[in-house]
């Protein structure tokens, strides 16, 4: 029923431009797998390679262990949900849903039955005779899912299917998508530039930047243990302090930053003299003094109160502020504007990564 997808050293070039660079991945059958990355990083290109609309310039796509070279999109066990859904406007909801079955030669009565089943699944019973234009955004979304599921694909490919919906509906559809995936048990490959979506729904996430897969891991690891400066800066909020490694002892390294020497976990085994970036998440920092090589101070620029928490913005290096998130339970005093505050953190939660491309912002 569900098949795994293997990408083996996939490269996709458009003329001189390399949209996907040497991507190797092993997506397991039944997995909810997400590609996360900023616009233009090659997510859609990867998806089109899996669905067969694009042949990779190099490398092999295997679905269920079978090499897909030369097999067209209409012959692959995948179904694609488009960024704009691409429902057929001149067909009714039922006709849309059962189109894949019609081209496979299924009879009318049987199609009718199948349509009713699927309408039940997407919680739109009895609405098969409506026109697509009569549906709301969320309903169209569900019809697109039903249309793709109707052909019983082994892999469902979703290209930012929620991006057109408003926030409330998007959050609702996240749960619904996840529930449907668990119900049908097939592999979902999901594309998004919204990290919230990727983190909440996925079993594993591949973070991409400029055609290169930066890291493949489950959501928690991507957040807690990013492998590159790009992932650290793209997923979640992060304070970055660039500098040179001055000392490396055991699991830790000290980076000489504009705020003085600061310590963090040296997961990459960087040696003294190397350029590095120390990342400290806003929620890992405290507004109090701590250990000498895990404390620095800066002037408060402003404070954003958000109910259960407050964001304190302090002067950083260049334009980018240093952010410290203080949750209400901490009971810590929040300094006033223009006060100079001490900031400290647990060196275990500071992360020293080799210097590299950062996410734009």
């Amino acid at each position, binding site marked *: 029923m569900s098949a795994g997808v293997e990408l083996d050293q996939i490269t996709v070039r458009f003329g001189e431009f390399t949209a996907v660079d040497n991507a190797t991945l092993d997506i397991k059958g039944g997995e909810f797998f997400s590609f996360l990355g900023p616009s233009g990083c090659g997510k859609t290109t990867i998806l089109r390679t899996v*669905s067969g609309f694009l042949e990779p310039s190099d490398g092999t796509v295997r679905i269920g262990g079978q090499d897909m070279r030369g097999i067209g*999109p209409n012959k692959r066990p*995948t179904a694609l949900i*488009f960024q704009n859904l*691409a429902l*057929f406007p001149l067909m009714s909801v039922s006709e849309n849903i059962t189109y894949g079955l019609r*081209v496979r030669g299924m009879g009318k009565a049987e199609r009718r039955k199948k349509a009713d089943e699927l309408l039940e699944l997407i919680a739109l019973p009895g609405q098969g005779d409506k026109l697509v234009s009569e549906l709301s955004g969320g309903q169209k979304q569900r019809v697109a899912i039903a249309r793709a599921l109707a052909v019983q694909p082994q892999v469902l490919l979703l290209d930012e299917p929620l991006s057109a919906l408003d926030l409330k509906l998007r959050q609702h559809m996240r749960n619904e998508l996840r529930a449907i995936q668990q119900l049908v048990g097939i592999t979902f490959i999901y594309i998004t530039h919204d990290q919230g979506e990727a983190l909440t729904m996925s079993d594993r996430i591949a973070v991409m930047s400029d055609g290169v897969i930066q890291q493949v891991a489950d959501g928690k690891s991507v957040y807690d243990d990013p492998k590159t400066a790009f992932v650290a800066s793209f997923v979640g909020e992060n304070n970055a302090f660039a500098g040179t490694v001055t000392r490396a002892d055991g699991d830790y390294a000290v980076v000489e930053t504009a705020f003085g020497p600061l310590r963090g976990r040296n997961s990459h085994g960087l040696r003294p003299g190397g350029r590095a970036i120390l990342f400290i998440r806003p929620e890992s920092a405290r507004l109090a003094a701590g250990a000498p090589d895990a404390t620095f101070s800066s002037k408060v620029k402003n404070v954003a109160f958000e109910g259960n928490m407050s964001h304190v913005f302090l002067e950083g290096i260049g334009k980018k502020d240093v952010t410290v998130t203080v949750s209400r339970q901490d009971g810590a005093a929040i300094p006033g504007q223009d006060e100079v505050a001490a900031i400290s953190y647990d060196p275990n939660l500071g992360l020293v990564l080799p210097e590299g491309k950062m996410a734009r912002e």
Partner: protein
Amino acid sequence: MSSRAFVFIIPIIVIAIFWAMAKFEYRNNNDPTRKGYFERNGKVLGIAFIALVAFWTLFLVGLPYLYMVVESFHPQLPPIKRGGPDDILTIAQYQSFLLSKHTDSINWLHISSLGFTIFVSIVVTALNFCICYPLAYYMAQTGATQKVRLLMLCLIVPYWVNEILRAFSLRLLLASKGLINQILMWVGFTDVPIDFLGNNTGLYVGLSYAYLLVMMFPLYNAIESLDKNQIEAARDLGAPWWRIHKDVVIPYAKPGIASGCTMVFMLSAGSLAAPQFLGGPRMLWFTAIIYDFFFQNFNWARGAAYSFILLAVCIALVMLLLRLFKVSLGETIR
């Protein structure tokens, strides 16, 4: 009052209608902030616009037609007898299409000519559709921009040459001693030259060529606005290429197809130059008959009657086909 004078009263009625239409333009519009026609243009300009539009539609479009309608119900008379006692309203001109005037036998010559004209026009329309659909699809959906531009140019440039010259050069190509026959004989395809003009091949080729763009542009426009993802979605769901066209592209492009086909059919049924240069000697093109009535026999009445017969048959056919393919007339001019 003669019936011809009656024609000149109608303008006044139509001006009144136009004025009333302008006056009630926003009657059904519930938006109160919207200004009425006269509020926007002022009284003087507003009236001037209406008068000008009315003048144009009436004197340059409406009246000449109307005059021809009236003319077709008159007998053929020398100028001095016009308006005299012999100038009566009659359907003799229409009758003469069906029955020969003197022998009272069925007028097969003209009837078969009309049939032939309609038949050829239908074939030409179908032919043009078959040529243009793949081309338009390629240009609108799959072709790279550069190539599409070049192709478009290749399609348009020949139409800078005037129609008669184009028809005549085709005739030169297709003649028994023309280039095409010479090549065919040289390759050994045939020993005697093929009579392309006599067997009407020239007629079909010439008419199709003359109205190629008329089919091309509506098709291109219709297909171009189709979302590529729709095509890919159908393909992804397992549809083979012909099903994608049948289920997705053609239904979407139907209004464009209808308007292209209607125009090609109407234009080719009413064309004059191509059939005269390229038609075979055995069959008469209907417009050639009409032309002869007007300019050879100076029988305007009968020419007018024949024109309206052609028009009526064409419109009836187009309406029938639109009904058959479930396209509304409004859609075709979308």
